[in-house]
């Protein structure tokens, strides 16, 4: 089983520890992981801003880096979703289709493909869960509060295997944090207010960490926490699942 590690560009640049944790975690679970060195970005920042027409270069580069693997795994629901929905190349339609099919967000790869039952990690802390919208509502990594469907959560399934971890949920279980790509600056006031409201619930729960599957949401929440000089820290799922 040949696995390619896809690291979103902003994680590569700002949160290398998340990428290291993802790599180590997959290797710990016995995976043969390659990291294609000339990967850049999935193209989502442009596409969500209305410029999907400018993503051909990113698509081309992505296909060049990630063709020929059994699975592609990335620690981001949002970027993986973008690729699943929009990756295309008229010259290499079959390779694009194969990638769209074989790409997985990290937690769903762990629960669905590797079927991890015992993660062997320890994190004795109070942790708040932030559910990121794209992973949840579009990749269906967890049940949705709006829908009448059986409750489930792939993230919780994994976090419940971590020794000592106490998971605390917010009352508004799956409300958006307000990051939203360019939304975070074009709609600054609403974006910040949404983030502050999410943070408030975690503060109320007295958590030490907020975790989630998308660093973009967590970066936004971290920005708000730091400005408020809060002690609460953010950590990606991968960092907790890789903690000893």
């Amino acid at each position, binding site marked *: 089983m040949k696995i390619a590690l896809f690291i979103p560009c*902003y994680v590569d*640049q700002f949160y*290398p520890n998340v990428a290291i944790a993802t790599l180590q975690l997959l290797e710990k679970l016995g995976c043969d992981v390659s990291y294609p060195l000339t990967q850049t970005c999935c193209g989502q920042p*442009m596409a969500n801003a209305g410029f999907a027409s400018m993503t051909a270069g990113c698509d081309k580069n992505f296909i060049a880096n990630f063709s020929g693997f059994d699975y592609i795994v990335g620690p981001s629901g949002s970027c993986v979703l973008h690729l699943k929905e929009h990756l295309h190349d008229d010259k290499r339609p079959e390779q694009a289709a194969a990638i769209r099919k074989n790409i997985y967000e990290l937690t769903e790869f762990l629960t669905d493909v590797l079927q991890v039952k015992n993660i062997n990690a320890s994190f004795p802390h109070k942790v708040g869960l932030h559910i990121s*919208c794209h992973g949840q509502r579009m990749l269906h990594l967890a049940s949705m509060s709006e829908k009448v469907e059986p409750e489930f959560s792939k993230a919780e399934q994994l976090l419940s295997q971590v020794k000592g971890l106490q998971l605390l949920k917010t009352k508004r279980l799956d409300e958006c944090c307000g990051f939203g790509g360019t939304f975070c*600056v074009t709609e600054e006031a609403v974006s910040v207010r949404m983030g502050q409201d999410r943070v408030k619930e975690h503060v109320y729960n007295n958590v030490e960490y907020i975790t989630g599957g998308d660093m973009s949401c967590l970066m936004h929440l971290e*920005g*708000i926490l730091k400005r408020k000089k809060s002690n609460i820290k953010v950590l990606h799922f991968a960092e907790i699942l890789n903690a000893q």
Partner: protein
Amino acid sequence: MNKTIEDHSKAASVFLQDEQRATWHDETLWFVRAKRDKAAHQLPEWEALRDLASQIKDHTLSRLDEYLVQFETKANENGVTVHWANDADEHNRIIHGILKKHNAKNVVKSKSMLTEECQLNHYLRDHDISVVDTDLGEYIVQLREEQPSHIVLPAIHLKKEDVSNTFHKHLNTEKGNKDEVYLTRSARKVLRQKFITADAAITGVNFAVAETGGFVVCTNEGNADLGAHANKIHIACMGFEKIIPKAEHLGVFLRLLTRSATGQPITTYSSHFHRPKEGQEMHIVIVNNGRANQLGRKDFKNSLKCIRCAACFNTCPVYRRSGGHSYHNSVAGPIGSILAPNLDMRKNADLPFASTLCGSCTNVCPVKINIHEQLWNWRQILMKEGYGGTAKKASMKVMATVLASPTIYSLSGKIGRGMMRIMPWSVNNKLNPWYKHRELPEPPKQSFTEWYKKKRKHE
């Protein structure tokens, strides 16, 4: 962002300045969303019901011409006069024509967002006809000369203190008395008089049934009935998408509508109208006003499935924190943001960007409109048509170039994590809106790629 006359982002930041009021607005609407969840979860067949409603609407939109003509024929047989209006102006002129013929000077209105869309009140006022919006929330905003901020809860942006002041000013109620029973009774007293003394009644239409030529109006206050039954002329206005094929389909929609809207199992009044009573005239005005254009847009056609429940408003985290007026369109919220650009792309170019694309709107929609996908699609069209401005396009071009090239990407990443300069949250470092209320992430010494190259040389 596009420079339009009105801009959602700016209006939202003004709305959010009053923190407590913004909290109240968010919590009040969240309460309605929670009631909706509870009502939905009481029906195990909820998702199947949504599927069915969606299919009925899809089918109807694919044969709209046939069903509309069938409806007209049946309505005519029932003694109802059917009018066709291609745009807002024609709609207003038709209604004015009917009223003028009968020398009607005072009109009571209930339950119509379409007449808001067409700005009927202004038109009739300019022709010396007085219109009173009789639904309490609409009445309040009409007295204040405001637009409804929500299609089901038109005065949800106001608190009872505001209503007290408004009623004191216009209805001479006691100053400072904000008891809701007192205020409601005061309004009722005035409105009952209006119903009795009016010359004609205008209502909206929730569902028009092709098979029978009848239509249904759903209200909680019963004002559509009061108006229609107390007057000799009843004019019902409908967008052409309100049609459904058969009476038996009503059960599907009536079960979904109010559960989605307010969490009630059914509206207090679901009034069925088929024919005028003796001595009465009944008119139906069927309106296009841009809907045919939307029907012709493949990616946006199914926005016409909307039954105006406003569930997408209540669940939208952006709507709850920006208020309905920030959308500068008669229909606000996520559904308004996909309908409005069809009416005027330039004026409404900001609205598809007033969303994080979280997708909650799509999940609550009782007729399964893919709202968040349509928001994304509108963004593509608006930018292609040049409504994004040249600066935005240029910065996106830089970003696309850097991100498409591994060489430039790794180079710009190395220099003090220069990637920061092209990312959306730091497009313009001097006036970076990110930094107003948020810290930026601390740039690490090396990127993951750099770490990997050092640690895993065997690769």
